């Protein structure tokens, strides 16, 4: 991965951040991301992000769980080794409801969580770049990607005009890599890329 140029604006208040995001999008800048200390309601729509497909994934995993439970138990107790348990019929559906329900929930929960971690690229030993260290504490950080055509001075001024408490330029690598947070990462070759 190569380093790109970014203009990073820090905001102190959600109420200032919102119109700023609107204005920045209207002005045509490309927002790389907005980092917030908590989930800001409506910000994803403001940024134009599409809806998450994690709900659908969860549903599919749940259905898989139900099918696994019912299919597995039916096969075992009807086909493979039917037993006379208290004279109950071999296909004792009421007795299997608890397990079916539990497996549905289990598959849905585990599947969704793993999908969440996969989509957000989260795992132990994953390291990502901090644009603004205080973005997990009390600062809302808007990061604008600068292509070759972007005048970073203009962008800085624009953000300041829209209420940013602090704006600066950064050269950073995005994405993730394996590492730990106690050390700075060194790129093998320092390459800065100009996006045309």
């Amino acid at each position, binding site marked *: 991965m190569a380093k790109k140029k970014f203009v990073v604006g820090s905001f102190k208040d959600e109420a200032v951040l919102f119109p700023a995001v609107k204005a920045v999008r209207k002005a045509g800048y490309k927002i790389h991301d907005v980092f917030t200390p908590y989930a800001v309601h409506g910000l994803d729509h403001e940024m134009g992000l599409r809806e998450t497909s994690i709900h659908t994934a969860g549903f599919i995993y749940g259905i898989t769980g139900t099918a696994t439970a019912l299919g597995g138990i039916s096969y075992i107790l009807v086909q493979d080794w039917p037993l006379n348990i208290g004279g109950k019929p071999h296909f004792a559906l009421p007795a299997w409801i608890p397990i079916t329900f*539990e497996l549905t929930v289990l598959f849905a929960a585990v599947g969704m969580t793993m999908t969440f971690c996969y989509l957000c690229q989260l795992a132990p030993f994953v390291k990502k770049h901090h644009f603004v260290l205080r973005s997990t504490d009390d600062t809302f950080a808007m990061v604008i990607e600068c292509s070759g055509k972007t005048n970073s001075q203009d962008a800085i001024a624009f953000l300041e005009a829209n209420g940013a408490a602090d704006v600066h330029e950064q050269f950073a690598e995005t994405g993730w890599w394996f590492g730990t947070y106690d050390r700075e990462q060194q790129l093998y070759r320092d390459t800065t890329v100009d996006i045309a």
Partner: protein
Amino acid sequence: MHLKYEAQIREPLVDGDKDYHQVSEDICRPIEVKPSRLWYIGFFISVALLLFGVWSVYDQVVYGVGQWNLNKTVGWGWDITNFVWWIGIGHAGTLISAILLLFRQGWRTGVNRAAEAMTIFAVICAGQFPIWHMGRVWLAFFIMPYPNSRGPVWVNFNSPLLWDVFAVSTYFTVSLLFWYTGLLPDLALIRDRAKTKFRKFFYGITSFGWTGSTKHWQRHEALSLVLAGLATPLVLSVHTIVSFDFATSVIPGWHTTIFPPYFVAGAIFSGFAMVQTLLLILRKVFSLQDYITLGHIEAMNKVIVLTGSIVGIAYLTELFIAFYSQNQYEAYAFFYTRANLFSPYGWAYYGMMTCNVLSPQIFWFRKMRRNLYVTFFMSIIVNIGMWFERFVIIATSIFRDYLPSSWSIYYSPSIFEIGFYVGTFGLFFTCFFLFSKYFPVIAIAEIKHVLKTSGQNYKEQVGGIESQKVEEFAGEYAH
């Protein structure tokens, strides 16, 4: 800004004029300082209790279940009583996190992290009992349905004990996932504030590289909501399945359809009591009174009086039906073995009734609900009462069941059973002490989420809204 506006008459959820940075400071401080003397004392006592438990269990596994005072009539005593007790305690955490999320109750944010941690540790403790109570623990894997070369021989899917296996493991897994995904942003905060190399390393790994990106928050919110939606029926179903261990049998006093709702209400009752015990200590020791306010304590006490009353009605219903059904065995179980001061276990039954039915009624009074000493004392009483409830159900029913020829001697625990129980307290508190030292006990990101609408200073600032016209308000706040 979202359209959420909370009325001025509601108490603030966060006292003390906090801003975001102050919230981070307050909650991270206990993690970032060295442990106090009190912490060390508590921790070492817990470890000592845990070691006592380990010795008790080791001795019992080597000699046999005969080290316990169980006999041919009373096959389950303290072992399964404690199992159900711990699982019941665990349910409150999930209820606070999941069900209150679905009901949009903002006050859950002050208490949910500690409550969920309590759930996870309680389920770990609960799980010890079904494992070690087995006669042949080394064959415990027989309970798992895996393809094998013995036929393949499978498990009995019609048995409530197997449903228990699935229910408890699912409950543990889902609670753990819910707790941990909620922790990720808070661990990232600690990582970003960390000064020492080791802390950066440790919290860097545990936070999975969380950055606070909006897309990630979007997915996180979606995941939290669905996990809450999944965990809610789990709270109801898991304890129902545990109650099925008894309800699906034929023993008088066990074979009753009231058990599922009775057990679930009882679980929430005892769980909230344990949450109160833990939180009252936590907020004092860590100076978190601004986050775990009297309003939070009061709300939890309301749940306690509600579920306690449900449990009380269930007891009275059981007694009535024992008479009304004219089933001689049921009537014997209730009127001779239980609600009878001259019965060997009559003291347990009356103790249970006093602790669970009479004493929580004190929380009908607002002054009592907001009194910390009363709350703490009551929380201990409720937990004792709920332990007796499980003991009464399990031991007294099998102690005097159908045929008098089956009846044998009075069951009381041996040192090994007591040691096992005490050991689980050790396990629970060891885990909880470690949790309170290394993890944030309050959900920081969620507190920040409600700060602007429910924090004390913001409530005062937005008070002017009530005099605004609707159009003005909507224009300013809608997006």
